[in-house]
């Protein structure tokens, strides 16, 4: 599976994803500059964390209108997969590729800490190898991660199975105390209707080696690669 890791000027998790994909998963991976629009050589594009353009206006706002993001709808339509983590998630929401909006944390502070999330749907290529209700341990590091959607949209997301992860306790209970940023319905990650674009605030790449505290983040990639093995290709192309 060929991965592309997108770099905006202020991205900083790019090298971390690159490290995990190349050194831990041993998959081919390349960096993709934000001005590039020719992305058809990839199966999966990763939009990593960072402060893409300083994120002064709204997190992800400027990057959401960049050339590479403009190329994403076509890429997805042709069967490409997209994973956005942290700032990547914010960018995908700003670009309208994922539903909802990410607002300033309700505590008004940046939060860097370990969180647990429950897996809410297992239809996406990124979650196909997981169990519904499975608890994953991954850290967050953001100041604007409060997922917001109006009641109608929230209902729709639940009906269409687009909620992928929710903040929970280690035991998998979705509680107010387990919600680190005030996200609606404890939502930590969502997907598009096809499940081919997934965004989440936690950092799977920071939970990919036992020595740094967890390997649960790898499960997303194993799902992806597992899907690949089963079908010969995730993309069917």
């Amino acid at each position, binding site marked *: 599976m060929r991965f592309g890791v997108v770099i905006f*000027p*202020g991205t*900083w*998790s790019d*090298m*971390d994803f690159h*490290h*995990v994909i190349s*050194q831990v998963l041993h998959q081919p991976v390349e960096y993709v500059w934000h001005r590039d629009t020719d992305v058809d050589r990839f199966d999966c594009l990763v939009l990593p*964390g*960072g*402060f893409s*353009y*300083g*994120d*002064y206006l709204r997190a992800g706002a400027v990057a959401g209108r960049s050339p590479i993001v403009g190329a994403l709808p076509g890429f997805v339509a042709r069967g490409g997969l997209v994973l956005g983590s942290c700032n990547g998630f914010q960018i995908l929401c700003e670009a309208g590729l994922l539903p909802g909006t990410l607002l300033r944390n309700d505590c008004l*502070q*940046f*939060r*860097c*800490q370990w969180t647990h999330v429950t897996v809410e749907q297992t239809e996406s290529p990124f979650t196909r190898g997981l169990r519904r209700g499975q608890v994953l341990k991954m*850290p967050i*590091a953001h*100041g604007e991660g409060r997922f917001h959607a109006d009641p109608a949209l929230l209902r729709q997301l639940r009906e269409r199975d687009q909620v992928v992860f929710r903040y929970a306790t280690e035991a998998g209970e979705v509680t107010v105390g387990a919600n680190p940023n005030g996200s609606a319905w404890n939502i930590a990650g969502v997907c598009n209707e096809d499940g081919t674009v997934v965004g989440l605030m936690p*950092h799977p*790449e*920071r939970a*990919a*080696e036992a*020595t*740094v505290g967890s390997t649960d983040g790898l499960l997303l990639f194993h799902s992806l690669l597992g899907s690949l093995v089963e079908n010969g290709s995730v993309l069917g192309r």
Partner: protein
Amino acid sequence: MPGTGSEPKVTPDLAASHGLTHEEYDRVIRLIGRDPTYPELGLFAALWSEHCSYKSSRVHLRRLPTTGPRVLQGPGENAGIVDVGDGFALAFKIESHNHPSFIEPFQGAATGVGGILRDIFTMGARPIALLDSLRFGPVDDPVARFLLGGVVAGIAHYGNCFGCPTVGGEVAFAPEYARNPLVNVLCLGLVPKDGIFRARADGVGNTFLYVGAKTGRDGIHGATMASEAFNETSAERRPTVQVGDPFTEKLLLEACLEAFRTGAVVGIQDMGAAGLACSLSEMPARAGTGADVDLDRVPQREPGMTPYEILLSESQERMLLVVERGREAEVQRVFQKWELDAVPIGRVTADGLLRARVRGEVVAEVPVRALTDEAPAYDRPRARPDWLDGERALDLRSVPEPADPGATLVRLLAAPTIASKRNIWRQYDHMVGINTLVPPGSDAAVLRIKGTPRAVAVATDGNGRYGQLDPFLGGAMAVVEAARNVVCAGGRPIAMTNCLNFASPERPEIMWQFAETVDGIAAACRALAIPVTGGNVSFYNETLGRAILPTPVIGVVGLLEDADRRTTQWFKAAGDVVVLLGEPAGGLGGSEYLHTVHGRLGGVPARLDLDRERAVQAACLAAIEAGCLRSAHDCAEGGLAVTLAESCVTGPQRLGALVALPEEGRVDELLFGEAPSRIVASVAPEELERLTQIVREWAVPVHVLGHVGGDRLEVRIGAATRVSVPIGGLADAFENGLTRALDQPVEALSGRESEGSA
């Protein structure tokens, strides 16, 4: 003689208002053989300021040992560099931003982070970690709260946005810092040994390339400001506040590292204090060259800037590169990609002069060495303060022993200086880069070096109370404690950096404190064989005559050959044996206990035996490297009882312990007394014998104190149980102590307004 334009006429009075004494002004005239022009006066005032010239400290800093087998770069560059094997080196340094952080805590701290990051990446290194060492007034002071909130938010803002993890540091509170907070930031970067860059303008004919943000009127006089005490008029200097832009800094980092790979970059220096003036004189001075630059070409943010302003602006996120002649375009292309200005502003010359032109006319022309090497150096008068003996004379009979030592322990755990700083460091991204093996919350942070089996441990330390009562000891203790923290994590100390925070050097008792501190640091460095590779001096930390405690902050870097041998401070399993390396006895002089419980600063701090210290550290390290320690925790502020309690409650799994101490002297001395050369460790029962053997080889006493287990910390002294507190109570005090203290209402008064009256 350069033209004077429409700028003010230079007089001795004008020079004095720039902070130059009459003698210094005469020296300027002697060195250049005429009256300086206004821009030239600015150059001398900035470069001869305490901040840039180290004129009061230089004669003392020479006494620090700076060489060692791993040292690739000692003091004198933007950062020190040590070899860590496998072709890698670590660049690291600490810097203060105390004065700007008092004037505007958020931006002051943010730009402090920005400055030290640049010092690291100018060396060719990619920053991998930040540590922040902070001091504030007591938390019930609204100004302290305002400053703390602003400083922490500023550090978080800059470090998080830039993408360098903040993995450690310290925060302490004492009344002496109420109007002089300390903000010291250490940065660590990783550089391939063959990819080190230096701040030199070599090669006559090469091009000075200005890169990064545009120049505005920010921070003009910043260097002279850091060289003055605060007084009623400091508020008027406020328009000089600089605003940090971490996003531009991140672009600058990536662009610089990419530009280095072209092979066309000869030298580089950031524009920090004294801006362009500093880079344009220091870079040629190091290389024995000169500079001829055209100030019109400097990218400007505001119209109508004068030569003086352009030379002295402290706008952030700028660098000066020296690029091989003819290869400018290669480098410029890189900066274009990152959407940054990169403009040739002049050439390296052979004549040793800094020559600045505006519209062809020379506005400044002075020998670079006059600005740098020829700067004045003073051996200022020193005198042991007459109040010292009074403060050291503490009659313990006037200090009542605690009736309920358990309650006292809980109180100490909740004291802002001791309590957990989680609420602070969870605002910092401490994981980006995925190198953080031991995050904040243990004695030292540990970061892996990817691609090698190694890791680096790093910690900062410095106790102003010891410095106040015995500055030599304060300096030595800061070194041995920082080193002990690194050792407890499994790191072998290889180098250190220091930030010396003091009041006005023009007061003999302060200068005495400074000199003593430097001697203490030097002695400890020699004893532990840890070279000094760099540092920073911050003088004039006093407001309206009130001086801070003499506060040396020491950052020690250690190496773990095997990252898997890293050790943390918390107990791991019930049944493990709790041991003390070193002797239990501690002293109350200068202790946190005296301060928190009795509101006193006094006495004689415990003696430091450097041979014993070296042996304890060596023994601990040998035990860790042999794999026979489960935990190791430096025994410091709060003494043995606090150390034990921290080992119980700071881990992912809280564990109780039952320990027994020999009956000896006062209870408070035994439980809360402070002393160096002590480490509380835990060991699996079957390893105890091996541990004892290893430690004996170093002639270090090992005391078996008890074992881990149960749901309370119980301390027996002789036959009596003197402390028995449920783990939940200890954890609550430690975890929530700082937050609760900060939440307590104070007189309804905002920090900002009361600050204005400072």
